[in-house]
């Protein structure tokens, strides 16, 4: 079997395979153009009489759970990434599989982290044949250099939910590490040593996987409240000494930036939103947990306070900054997809207006609507943007995979998407003639804010008009590109082979671009 075949040019002019890892895939057809019909994927019918009447689904250990779940060659194993770099469970699953001599597994995480570099020997010896999920650090390097058996598939958080719901990916065993659970399998992320806030990324896995294993280090008697994951979906429960390393679960990087250049970008972003009327009483925004995004949130807070306004809601990965705004009354609700620090976790536990969400509510392509398109202002990062506003978030300009898509593609559906990014990083200009990997078509990106000027997508005539007398440094994207190249010099094209190592999915499950093998 070829790793991939049948290349075609898709709607954004990228060559993509339509046969990958022996499965058929559809090339990107344009935003909102692909509408599958038929019925959603249905998991196998289960019967309650097959489960203990006393509700006790505890088994001895993870290995026993995996054996009972029928672990065998070629299966798809899913995990979630709420523990981030403090995850202790995903590695153990594959340690066990390796020890049992199982081969050819597909790992389907909602994201991977540096701690998962532990899995590289298993990718080398065939225990794992491929990863369908984000790959960065050592895993990104491994895949980028063409060492993975299968083709990597990168999906957004919403795209992962879509792939599970329409049956594109059928999970054999979902392993859900949980900060708190009861023997019935009810689980949550708000309590326990490994408290991570919520378990929304595991929701689809719990509902659609053939077998579901909940692993916890904080086993409480029934009922574990709140039941973010419902035990009614769960086959086995495992008690371990530790599911995650708390200090690595709570990301240490969620501080407002101290970099004067990034603060300037944040300030320009906020001033742009203020002067073009994007911020108003009752507006909503999505801000990430990066230093610049947090700082933008602070500036938004100042604008709200000054005008005596309130934001209706923040879509967040939450931490102490949005939580403080909630407490101060600057915002009415936090709709939270993941918590980045203990203030976020505590607020979710205690404040009814701090609500946990999942890719189903926020991003799901097969839902009857989702929240993403209701958000007024979305602030995101990118590794590269081209002169047509197409953007890249997964590869570095040298071709290496370095980020997952996360919720990035999904949040682009907000009313105005702004990318606050430095004009160059370590000499490398961010604005290119062509992005290395196209993760979003330019029509989805409205504004680029750099420390040296702001470029507005020509499609947004309204914003161009409103920004006219703002006194802000509005430039064309071409001018920004030329400015960066005048400083840095014109970069060469990276040396990439024509061999595909991974593909990028759009939110609807079609393939928007291919990732090529890097020549060392």
């Amino acid at each position, binding site marked *: 079997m070829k790793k991939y075949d049948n290349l075609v040019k898709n709607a954004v002019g990228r060559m993509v395979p339509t046969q990958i890892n022996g499965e058929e895939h559809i090339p990107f057809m344009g935003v909102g153009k692909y509408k599958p019909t038929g019925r959603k994927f249905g998991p196998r019918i289960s019967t309650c009489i097959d489960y203990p009447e006393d509700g006790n689904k505890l088994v001895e250990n993870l290995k026993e759970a995996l054996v009972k779940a029928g672990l065998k060659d070629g299966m798809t194993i899913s995990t979630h990434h709420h523990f981030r770099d403090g995850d202790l469970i995903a590695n153990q699953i594959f340690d066990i599989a390796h020890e049992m001599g199982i081969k050819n597994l597909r790992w389907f995480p909602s994201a991977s982290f540096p701690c998962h570099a532990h899995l590289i020997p298993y990718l080398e010896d065939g225990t794992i044949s491929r990863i369908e999920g984000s790959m960065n650090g050592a895993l990104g390097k491994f895949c980028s250099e063409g060492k993975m058996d299968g083709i990597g598939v990168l999906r957004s958080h919403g795209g992962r939910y879509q792939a599970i719901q329409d049956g594109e990916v059928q999970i054999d065993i979902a392993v859900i590490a949980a900060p708190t659970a009861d023997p019935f399998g009810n689980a949550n992320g708000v309590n326990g040593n490994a408290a991570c806030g919520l378990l929304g990324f595991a929701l689809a896995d719990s509902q659609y996987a053939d077998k579901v294993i909940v692993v916890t280090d904080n086993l409480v008697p029934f009922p574990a409240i709140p039941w973010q994951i419902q035990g009614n979906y769960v086959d086995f429960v495992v008690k371990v000494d530790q599911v995650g390393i708390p200090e690595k679960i709570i990301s240490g990087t969620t501080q407002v930036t101290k970099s*004067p*250049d990034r*603060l*300037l970008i944040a300030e320009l972003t906020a001033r742009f939103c203020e002067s073009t009327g994007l911020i108003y009483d009752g507006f909503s925004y999505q801000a990430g947990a990066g230093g610049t995004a947090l700082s933008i949130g602070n500036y938004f807070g100042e604008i709200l306070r000054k005008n005596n306004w309130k934001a209706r809601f923040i879509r967040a990965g939450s931490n102490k900054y949005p939580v403080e705004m909630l407490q101060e009354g600057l915002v009415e609700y936090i709709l939270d997809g993941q918590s980045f620090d203990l203030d976020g976790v505590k607020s979710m536990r205690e404040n009814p207006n701090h609500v946990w969400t999942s890719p189903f509510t926020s991003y799901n392509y097969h839902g009857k609507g989702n929240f993403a398109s209701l958000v007024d202002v979305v602030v995101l990062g990118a590794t590269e943007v081209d002169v047509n506003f197409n953007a890249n978030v997964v590869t570095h*300009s*040298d*071709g290496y995979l370095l980020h997952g898509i996360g919720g990035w593609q999904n949040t682009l559906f907000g009313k105005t998407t702004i990318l606050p990014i430095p004009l160059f*990083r*370590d*000499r*490398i200009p961010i604005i290119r003639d062509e992005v290395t990997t196209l993760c979003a078509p330019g029509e989805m990106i409205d504004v680029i804010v750099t*420390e*040296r000027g702001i470029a507005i997508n020509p499609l947004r005539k309204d914003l161009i008009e409103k920004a006219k007398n703002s006194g802000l440094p509005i430039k064309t994207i071409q001018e920004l590109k030329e400015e960066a190249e005048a*400083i*840095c*010099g014109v*970069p*060469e094209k*990276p*040396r990439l082979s024509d061999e595909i190592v991974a593909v990028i999915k759009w939110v609807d499950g079609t393939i928007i671009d291919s990732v090529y093998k890097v020549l060392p």
Partner: protein
Amino acid sequence: MDNITGIAGNKGKGVSSDAEVEFQSTSKGGIEIQIESKVKALYGNHIHKLAEDILRFFQIKNAIVKIADTGALDFVLAARLEAAIKKALPEKKKEFLLPMLDENLNGSKKEAFRFSRLYLPGNSPKLMLNAGIHNPNGLILDLEDAVALEKKHEARFLVRNALRNLRFYGAERMVRINQGERGLEDLEYVVPHHVNLILVPKCESAAELKTVDEKIQALRTSNNIEHPVWLMPIIESAKGVLNAYEIASASENVVALAIGLEDYTADLGTQRTNEGTESLFARSMVVNASRAAGIQPIDSVFRDVSDMEALAENVKRSKALGFDGMGCIHPRQIKVVHDNFAPEEGEIDQAKKICIAFKEAKAKGLGVVSLGSKMIDAPIVKRALKTIDLAVKMGKLEMDWESKEIEK
């Protein structure tokens, strides 16, 4: 011939936009260039070619060059390689210069605003690249305190190249030279490359400053430089304070007199406080001497870069004492300094009234200006006119405010 090696530049943790270059002069084997760079995929060939050009320029036929690059721009790479070559082969006297940016050819005016001037360590390219976008009135490439002794040589090449090729975004291009003989040598690296202003540290007498000024004038003549090179002496000792006026009036090129309080308080044997009681005399002396000489008095830097409120208080005190500006050691301080040196709303309103009254009195041929029942003295009128001028220049007042005022 033995192999001789010269090393220049920085690498290691926390370093970016820089390069460490090791140049080894060899007697045979031709040129060998080894590049290790995080931007190699995109700029590897470019860096290689630049290194070749520089070696050819210095007529070097045999050498091993090792470049450890963290995203350095060309002017940085060129400075590092030239410094490394000259360390190994001091007999090489030519200078490798990249074409000067047109925008760096502008001169500065004697009376230019000098509210803020941002210090940049002269051997740290990373901090230089974006400094100008924070809009300070001046950018100081510092060869003195911010550069370690063993880095003094290489910093000169970097500062020289920065004067030519760094973007200053309209900020006045300043260099702080070293004290004494080393400082005079520094001038050779900066005066021919369109520096606008030289800061002379730890200045204690007019004679010292005159030596610097004479060297500058000699360099201007030999390099056919037409634009002025201004001087800002820094008073940093008890003796300097007592000689403040003679220093301030030592040359017509002196445009401002600054005070450096860290060294001054050390000289007094006291501690620097936020309130600044210990330096009140010195600061008042500097203000007084500057005003007497018709130049700008400039205050010391504020050390706590995280406390913007304390900085704002400090600027207000400084302005109240009569200073026209202050040094900055972090880009975020610039806006606070500008905002607090700028005239306040109430000040502007009062000045507007006085200005209008003054013009009316003049039109009527009256010798006395009055506002309501109050007589206004000439110095107050003068200050009001200056406030208006400042408010307009800082964008706090529209140019045509008067016609609008009259419409009301």
